[in-house]
């Protein structure tokens, strides 16, 4: 998948959970990614982040990455 799309989709999820109350938003982003994204897509996202692009990613996505 194109990195743009991957990033956009991940950030869209983070945007939703930003608005949710509580302290566990990063966990919930991780939960959503694990529930709905296949392992290949999660891997692609991690690889993308590791390549030093993680500033494109929402802070919640960055915090969720180690959990997925």
């Amino acid at each position: 998948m194109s990195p743009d799309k991957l990033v956009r989709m991940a950030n869209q999820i983070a945007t939703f959970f930003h608005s949710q109350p509580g302290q566990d938003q990063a966990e919930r982003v991780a939960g959503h990614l694990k529930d709905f994204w296949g392992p290949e897509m999660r891997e692609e996202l991690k690889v993308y982040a590791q390549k030093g692009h993680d500033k494109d990613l929402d802070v919640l996505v960055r915090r969720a990455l180690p959990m997925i």
Partner: protein
Amino acid sequence: MKDFIIPWDDDRDLGTPAKTGAPVTLSVDGVEVTVPAGTSVMRAAALAGIGVPKLCATDSLEAFGSCRLCVVEIEGRRGTPASCTTPVAPGMVVRTQSEKVKKIRRGVMELYISDHPLDCLTCAANGDCELQDMAGAVGLRDVRYEAPENAALANHVTPRNTSGEANPLWQAKDESNPYFTYDPSKCIVCNRCVRACEEVQGTFALTIEGRGFDSRVKAGGPLDDFLSSDCVSCGACVQACPTATLQEKSVIELGTPERSVITTCAYCGVGCSFKAELNGDELVRMVPHKHGEANRGHSCVKGRFAWGYASHPDRILHPMIRDSIDEPWREVSWEEAIGFAAARLRGLQEKHGRKSIGVITSSRCTNEETFLVQKLARGVFLNNNTDTCARVCHSPTGYGLGQAFGTSAGTQNFDSVEQSDVVLVIGANPTDGHPVFGSRLKKRLRQGAKLIVIDPRRIDLVKTPHVEAAHHLALRPGTNVAVVTAMAHVIVTEGLYDEAFIRERCDWDEFQEYAAFVSDPRHAPEAVEALTGVPAEELRATARTFATGGNGAIYYGLGVTEHSQGSTTVMGIANLAMLTGNIGREGVGVNPLRGQNNVQGSCDMGSFPHELPGYRHVKNADVRAIFEQAWGVEIDPEPGLRINNMLDAATSGQFKGLYCQGEDILQSDPDTRHVAAGLAAMECVIVHDLFLNETANYAHVFLPGSTFLEKDGTFTNAERRINRVRRVMAPRNGYADWEITQLLANAMGAGWSYAHPSEIMAEIAATTPGFANVNYEMLEERGSVQWPCNDDTPDGSPIMHVDGFVRGKGRFMITEYVATEERTGPRFPLLLTTGRILSQYNVGAQTRRTENTVWHQEDVLEIHPHDAETRGITEGDWVKLASRSGETSLRATLTDRVSPGVVYTTFHHPGTQANVITTDFSDWATNCPEYKVTAVQVSPSNGPTAWQEDYEDRARRARRVLPAAE
């Protein structure tokens, strides 16, 4: 007293509709009978087994009392009252036969027959005519009316009198409607058709023109025929007509049917029950089944009439294969096609891994077929690469309602609308998309329920005969969340919420957080007005109407889900229902109107890559264990690929093979070029469908499918109702679809041995708690059942969340508005939104192959006159519609149904390629594509674009079939 239990397939006409009053006992011809107060004497007699002759009465319509054939004598009453309009009274003694009433009846019949052609033997209704039956029943033996001396007998029957002059009373047959004819010479002016059009369909297309002897039925205004009138061809009038005046053309051509089979419409999510009426295995007509609980004897033009596609010459009946997509197709045997497909798929898995292939299940196929297709992925391919076109329509419903209530289905049955006081329709167009529900809704609105419409476009419901929306919020496409949250703001800040309900049924702490969130002034109608385009005062009034108007029901459609915030809007809708205490009883609820006939079922059956049948996530080991035990395989605990991921993975070379049943993803999925590129990159695309659809242009194997008339199974409609589909004729392609999937699975080593879909249902019931008590014997007995149906709810569940939410406490979710990234700007200043129309269905593969095309030959672009004027566009012009993704051309029509800044089109025709323009933005939670908002520009053009012509050309080449080898 007699036992009045009526088996569900008894469809005698009892003359007048059922009533629900307290029991009243009376005697009819010496038989004692107890009926609800308000019942007519005619119906009471019928229930006692005594038929009173009648012509103007039928039990789908309120009594009218015009023919006077149904007169009876009642002890202690003077005269001979009409039994259809006389309500029962306690202790009443009725006599249906006496010299007096017999004489009256014969006199009435004589009058009718004197102005009726006596061509019974050659009449299309011969044997199926109530006038004929009644003439027999009253013992009519001669007609004594004679022409006055020196003049012809005035009649409507003969075109010319004996001296050859034209008879001014005679009118020619109206054959303008493609499916039925109107022959005024046979009309007895019983008014049944007019009332059916008003009471049942709610279109008010018919009137009685003229008075007394001169009166005749008229469709539309003075210059109209049926086709040009407002008639929507639902056929209710044809069904109600007691004579051959309104008659199906298929009956005229083929004769009256001699047997019937009850089955379910395969078009939309209403799931109407029909009697398929046949001669041998030739279908003569479809008549909506009176005891069908979804439709209660009504239907729309698609289900009743648009079944001709089943025998259309375009239908493919033999399997075909080809090595590459630039070769022509080769017709081969089933064995060869299945062997070819199986070998390719297995080969791909060996070379590129277990996860390199997948399936797409269909929302048009049966539950049993869908179950098998996902089982093929999980149990034979050993991956979770299964998805369904429901992804592109209602996946946000699954997610949103699952979060709020704990289950992802509509909460009501369709009957529930009869108890609603305020109906909120948001992002749905029931009269076009779910016509029979639309008619039932309109009926309730005519009785006084209030209507609120939230839609960028002025849908028909906003103003239609005898119905007018109390509020229409014509919001800017893409601002649903802002509007719904602003409604909640008004309800909370004005203290209109149902505190008792919330305390009892929902999580109070979550409610507090939610209340604080929506109360923030930035969610006030005044604050969002500039964004949504909805006047604040109007929005406030709407919220008040909904919160304080009594039973409030919400119905929504794809205008809610197909957005980047689709799931959030669904949650917002659930919030509104909980806030106002509108959940868990009749007349209220949250009701997604599903698009295709079995969207609900395909979701229930585990078509999504992350969940097994019954909405249970694949990560749950206990759920996997159930299927692992049943199937003897190990189930992958990780979610598989969704349609768009499959296509992406194909483009990047990891995904190679697809089995696509009954879906045309190339036409129905967004961003056509992206889909085409993905398909083109695969090495084995298997299309299993009735026609060489657009996706088949990229296929290597074509497996011809069977129609709903040719197989057994079940569909689950939008109210969770499991309806039987019954085989009425042998599959013309040789196999039912479930058999074809089984052949493919077995060729890959599965060893399945289903002999009948009932065995597949048994497996579904054994593995899926909500279906535990569902089986074919039960469906045979009861007709249909709404899931969950198990030991807790053995009779099924017409209404959900009655005593508590499935998840325990209802959950309020924070719904922050986030603007879609799809924004208008100088290059693309208009917003395109899409929809559908009544006569066509979805990608149109079926309806385009029927006479329904008379109503919709092409997709057109609706544009506001202001926007048109500034662009120099006039009515009927070809225009170019361009977005960031692509461009296409179609004709424009100028209308103020859409607001300035918004344009609208349908996507029923492949030539239009509306999805060339839609982008690949999608819902944040489910990736349901954002069909409903695309920034576009419209400019004059002089015909189809290069892409369209090019596409046509490629499609033609891709569809070549080699002549069969000797």
